[in-house]
């Protein structure tokens, strides 16, 4: 008996327990919901049959129904635009800022710290702030743009169907830049200074140094930041809830918000599950890229 406890405390038993705890955690909190979700996507489920077993299987009917709704196409492309534009701008702005603050100048780290304010704010608060900035009639952004003479008439960022998706994207870019900047700063700090010094002595200019030193050495970080960014962007829900609620007429709706609407507004949980299964497939693909990019990092 003591031997067993001894082994649990400091021997091989302890390792085994740790492994099983991690495995158990993954099974209960990752694998089970994932599979449960896939199962639900093939069943006819509503809010009240959610906890019972009275849920008839309907095969792929839910998939057919979701994909045949007239808005599915629009929402799919909105999701693609949302992810691609968010990532491109978050990454380039974040990378630019990271390089800027990597220079030695007084107050650099303090200013960098300020950027984190956006990141630690809850997204719903960010949403409320941005809804004031973007409001059509009295919004700050319209005020600034019209005093600068850029626009003559107010832009209804949130309620114009041609603008509303971009309005959410702008807010999301702002929200994601600090995260990108932080992770990329860590990577930049890890590049030895003497490599640059040697290159400079060899006569390489700043642009050349960026493409031959910075970019290749940052490959792993960039891969990780892009994949995490895609996952975070696909998770972004609060901004839609706070700014446009997917409207007007689905103009700013994306898969993650649509899934919630189907599940919890009209209680078609089977259909909501279908949308999230489609998203899971995509996230698995992205996760694979992430795993590859971090493996590359270990190899170095």
């Amino acid at each position, binding site marked *: 008996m003591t031997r067993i406890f001894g082994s649990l405390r400091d021997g091989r038993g302890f390792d085994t327990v740790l492994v099983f705890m991690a495995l158990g955690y993954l099974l209960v909190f990752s694998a089970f919901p994932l599979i449960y979700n896939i199962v639900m996507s093939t069943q006819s489920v509503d*809010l*009240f049959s*959610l*906890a*019972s077993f009275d849920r008839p299987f309907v095969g792929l009917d839910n998939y057919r129904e979701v994909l045949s709704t007239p808005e599915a196409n629009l929402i799919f492309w909105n999701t693609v635009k949302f992810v691609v534009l968010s990532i491109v701008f978050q990454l380039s702005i974040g990378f630019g800022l990271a390089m800027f603050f990597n220079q030695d100048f007084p107050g650099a780290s303090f200013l960098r710290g300020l950027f984190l304010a956006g990141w630690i704010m809850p997204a719903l608060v960010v949403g409320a702030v941005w809804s004031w900035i973007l*409001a*059509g*009639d*009295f919004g700050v952004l319209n005020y600034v743009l019209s005093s600068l003479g850029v626009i003559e008439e107010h832009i*209804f960022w*949130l*309620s*114009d*169907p041609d603008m*509303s998706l971009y309005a959410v994207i702008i807010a999301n870019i702002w929200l994601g830049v600090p995260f990108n900047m932080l992770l990329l700063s860590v990577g930049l700090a890890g590049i030895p200074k003497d490599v640059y010094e040697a290159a400079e002595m060899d006569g390489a200019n700043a642009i050349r140094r960026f493409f031959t030193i910075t970019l290749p050495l940052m490959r792993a970080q960039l891969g990780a930041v892009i994949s995490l960014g895609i996952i975070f962007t696909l998770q972004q829900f609060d901004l839609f809830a706070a*700014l*446009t*609620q*997917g*409207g*007007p*007429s*689905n*103009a700013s709706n994306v898969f993650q918000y649509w899934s919630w609407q189907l599940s*919890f*507004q*009209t*209680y*078609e949980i089977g259909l909501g599950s279908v949308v999230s299964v489609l998203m899971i497939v995509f996230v698995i693909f992205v996760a694979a890229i992430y795993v590859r990019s971090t493996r590359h990092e270990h190899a170095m």
Partner: protein
Amino acid sequence: MTFSKTLASATALGCAAFPFGAVAQDVTLDLWTIDDPGEYHYVMADEFMEANPDVKINVRTVQFEDMVNDLARGIAANDAPDITYIDNPEVALFASRGLLLDLKPYIEASDVVNEADIFPGPLSSVSYDGGIYGIPRGANTIALYYNADMYRDAGLDPDDPPQTWDELYEAAKVLTKPEDNVYGIAFSAVGTEEGTFQFLPWLQMTGGDYDNVDTEGGAEALTLWKMLIDEKLASPDTLIRGQWDSTGTFNAGSAAMSISGPWELPRMSQEADFDFRAALLPIPEEGAERASALGEGDNVILANSDNPDEAFKFIEFLYANMDRVWNEFGYLPASDVEVVDPAYPEIYAVFEESMKYARNRGPHPEWPKISKAIQTAIQYSLTGQASPEDALATAQSQIDRVLGK
């Protein structure tokens, strides 16, 4: 009781529905509400506990949008409250699944609640399949608020607010002052239940209803709404703003009229420093039928409550205090009671009158899907992505499918 609740939720993980009786003499009731401390349910629960020391009421605040989901979760986990407040279109949803206690036998035996005193609109919102599944907490409806000062400035007669849709449009036109950032009217066409709530009366005034939306009158109503927005007589943000935010612009003097309900009065009396008045919703033309929306929710008892008798006693108590709701809590009585010395007597008279025309949403157990179809039609036609006729035809086919036609 608290112990058994904890145990119940613990065992619920194993899906074991184990019957727990009351273990103590004293009875504890769980009450969920959308009110915050200091508001209606909290005040009433305190008064009730004072009068009935053997009953304890645990009040918990749930966000309005989360109520249905939280209840469904609570019911699944065997952790649902005894009494709860739900929005009136949701009564049919819960009743159709046997989750609510039928109060009919209780009402028949009651000395306090008299079915005949409850107004027909609120009564039909709690009726389902021959039973009565809740008692209206109060009632709400919408009307046209207007800024009488702006009326005078614009040369309109503040004692003669618009009666018809045409007059409303003309008034909005005269009142709109883009140079001062003032819109003629504020309302809500948001893509949620609130949008349906605001639009339905317009449809009903022309003879349509939730099951008959593809009508000429419906298209006319949407065309008018579209004109208001296209001509900037109402803010384009009407499409994404709820009623509370829309009326906020009225209170701030940025809109001359606003369509909303009596729940706005407490805030309006603080924020609006002008002569605000109310009028009935305009009708399509002289002599047309009137309609208004019916809002507010109901107090219901869950079917698996351990203490249905005490729970009903509490609901009786709420009902007996119906004459206080206007003055203290900002909504209308749902039954035939006399309000002594009403606050804002003229506005109260308008809403009281409007209440006579207030009609239900549904009732239908699949209401959220029907409502969604209507919201979609509103949004597609107001953004110009579909004509009002096409948008309503699409909504009709979706609604027909829900109704099994």
